[in-house]
């Protein structure tokens, strides 16, 4: 199927800015990562860290006042940024890369049946006839675990629960058999038992269809369960990239470590959570040094004056990628 080896998607020094009345908000600052076929990559971060903007930039969905101001996104070697990218994006978007958003309520059109909405995708992108599309819609709904698909196609979004709607959106995303699914907080609006159903579904589909998945979330628990590799974002930058096991075992960046310590675990009881004091910086005027320096218990003068880039560290015999002048020092705390 793949005529070339190498990563599916490469993001190279991506910058996204929003030009507001108050000034330029540097939402994504110099972000680089890649994803291999069939892999699950997690992007974790708090609100305002730039994780959703990054996802939107991958598919050219940044709208004014936002703009990609630097860097490149390459899908199987082809650039999705800059001149002439619209043509490539039109081909790739929906067909090869699909996206699922957080809010299943607003992502569907309330005035059409869900059957019509999925069929529309098939007819537009795959050029299917009405009858073929209808049959395929029922197959797709069955694939995403919706019972009685022949009845369900006639329903409107308001007749379905949040979990059902998210399944419909996943069915829609999978309609054109994409190679990469970008899921932006797909389970945040859902109850925990429904979240478990949806995560299970994504994992199953991935096995069955050989999909690569980029999962964007703020929930470290969700990432731990499903992701092979993880990028941790803070203040518009990736501060650490690691395999899930390495990240949770020995976080290299003080922010990753702080985030893990601040997250209560169901399986252990602590007398007190260790919080991270303060709040993230204003990206209208990002600090000259490390974005986390003001909140970091390990910060030294260099952290305030000079911004660390993501670099290769050797830790316990493993290659680790961390953007910190004091990477892994936290382990000693």
């Amino acid at each position, binding site marked *: 199927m793949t005529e070339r080896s190498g990563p599916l998607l490469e993001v190279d020094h991506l910058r996204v800015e929003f030009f507001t009345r108050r000034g330029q908000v540097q939402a994504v600052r110099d972000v680089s990562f890649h994803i291999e076929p069939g892999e699950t990559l997690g992007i974790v971060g708090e609100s305002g860290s730039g994780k959703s903007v990054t996802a939107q930039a991958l598919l050219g969905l940044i709208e004014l006042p936002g703009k990609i101001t630097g860097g490149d996104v390459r899908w199987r070697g082809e650039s999705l940024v800059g001149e002439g990218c619209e043509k490539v994006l039109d081909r790739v978007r929906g067909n090869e890369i699909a996206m699922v958003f957080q809010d299943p309520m607003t992502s569907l059109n309330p005035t059409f049946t869900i059957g019509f909405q999925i069929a529309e995708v098939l007819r537009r992108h795959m050029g299917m006839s009405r009858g073929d599309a209808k049959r395929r819609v029922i197959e797709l709904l069955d694939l995403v675990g919706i019972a009685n698909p022949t009845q369900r196609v006639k329903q409107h979004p308001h007749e379905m629960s949040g979990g*059902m709607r998210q399944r419909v959106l996943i069915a829609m995303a999978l309609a054109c058999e994409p190679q990469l699914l970008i899921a932006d907080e797909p389970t945040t609006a859902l109850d925990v038992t429904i979240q478990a159903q949806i995560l299970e579904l994504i994992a199953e589909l991935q096995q069955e269809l050989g999909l690569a998945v980029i999962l964007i979330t703020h929930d470290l628990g969700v990432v731990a369960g499903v992701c092979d590799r993880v990028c941790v974002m803070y203040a518009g930058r990736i501060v650490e990239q690691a395999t899930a096991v390495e990240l949770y075992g020995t976080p290299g960046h003080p922010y990753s470590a702080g985030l893990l310590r601040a997250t209560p675990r169901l399986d252990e009881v602590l007398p007190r959570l*260790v919080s991270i004091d303060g709040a993230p910086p204003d990206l209208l005027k990002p600090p000259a040094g490390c974005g986390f320096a003001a909140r970091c218990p390990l910060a030294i003068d260099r952290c305030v004056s000079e911004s660390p880039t993501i670099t290769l560290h050797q830790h316990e015999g493993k290659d680790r990628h961390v953007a910190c002048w004091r990477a892994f020092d936290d382990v000693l705390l």
Partner: protein
Amino acid sequence: MSPVGAHSTTSSSDAGAEHGPIVEVESLCVRFPVKGGFGRTKKWVHALDDVNLFVGRGETLGLVGESGSGKTTLGRAVLRRAPITSGSVHFDGQDITHLGGEQLRQLRRRMQLVFQDPYASLNPRMTILELVAEPLVVHGMVRKAEEARADVYDLLDRCGLPGDAIDRYPHAFSGGQRQRIGIARALAMRPSLIVADEPVSALDVSVRAQVVNLLQDVQSEFGLSYLFIAHDLSVVRHISQRIAIMYAGRIAEIAPSNEVYERPRHPYTKALLSAVPIPDPVVQRERRREVLIGEIPNPIDPPPGCRFQTRCPMATDLCRTENPVLEQKSPGHWAACHYSDQLV
């Protein structure tokens, strides 16, 4: 003994009220009418159905459930802000179910609410001083907010806000700081009980920990009892001494936090626990997950028998016909399931 604990012994004489629970809820039902126009029969949303529980003095009772389980309605009913169809609510030994007018107003001084959304719950046109002092003004304890300045300053300080916050407006603060303001406002009346409805759900992880710690600090400092409503079981287990699990308007299980986690006696609790992801890939990938099929039943037309029977992997004909009552299975551990003994 009933799950309402000491109430049955203290109601006859008020002498023991000081030591009894701060809140006791007994056989509480709340139903909301749904209008059926054009000759359709009137239907009811069964929001709460025969709920029994108590909150001890100085205790945090965590109330967990999915959306639509009735946890917010229960919190509101305790504060007398939901229409009670039947059953009773006692506060500090006093039956408040039918209280009205001035008596209810007096009562509300002693119970406060902390909301989920720190952006919607603070009036943007009021300064922090006015916001925090507002309950004092409303209850006639001061004539103007300005008179409470020293007290407000002190409260803000205890809630970890900078001194210059007092004359600023809500827009100048982040979500975490706004939630601190909401807590300061709730503390202004020196209440005995705070009902916290998803107080940290809208906050980011690092800020959430700050607010959870603050809630714990002021609890011991002000001698507060909490009814802590949340859907996040990890946070609830961290902050609560006991946990009540709700499902479709009924209590499925109540037990000390460790018991709930280590020895769940209701299949819904078990499924809920297994659905909560643990932030550790080594542990999480080893866990046996029980993924529940289906969704919470429609509260207008709940199923007969046990409300969980439509999704329960253990359901039998008995569950489909007979509603299991909340029974004490071991000291302090209550569950409403016909087969709870099989779970241990």
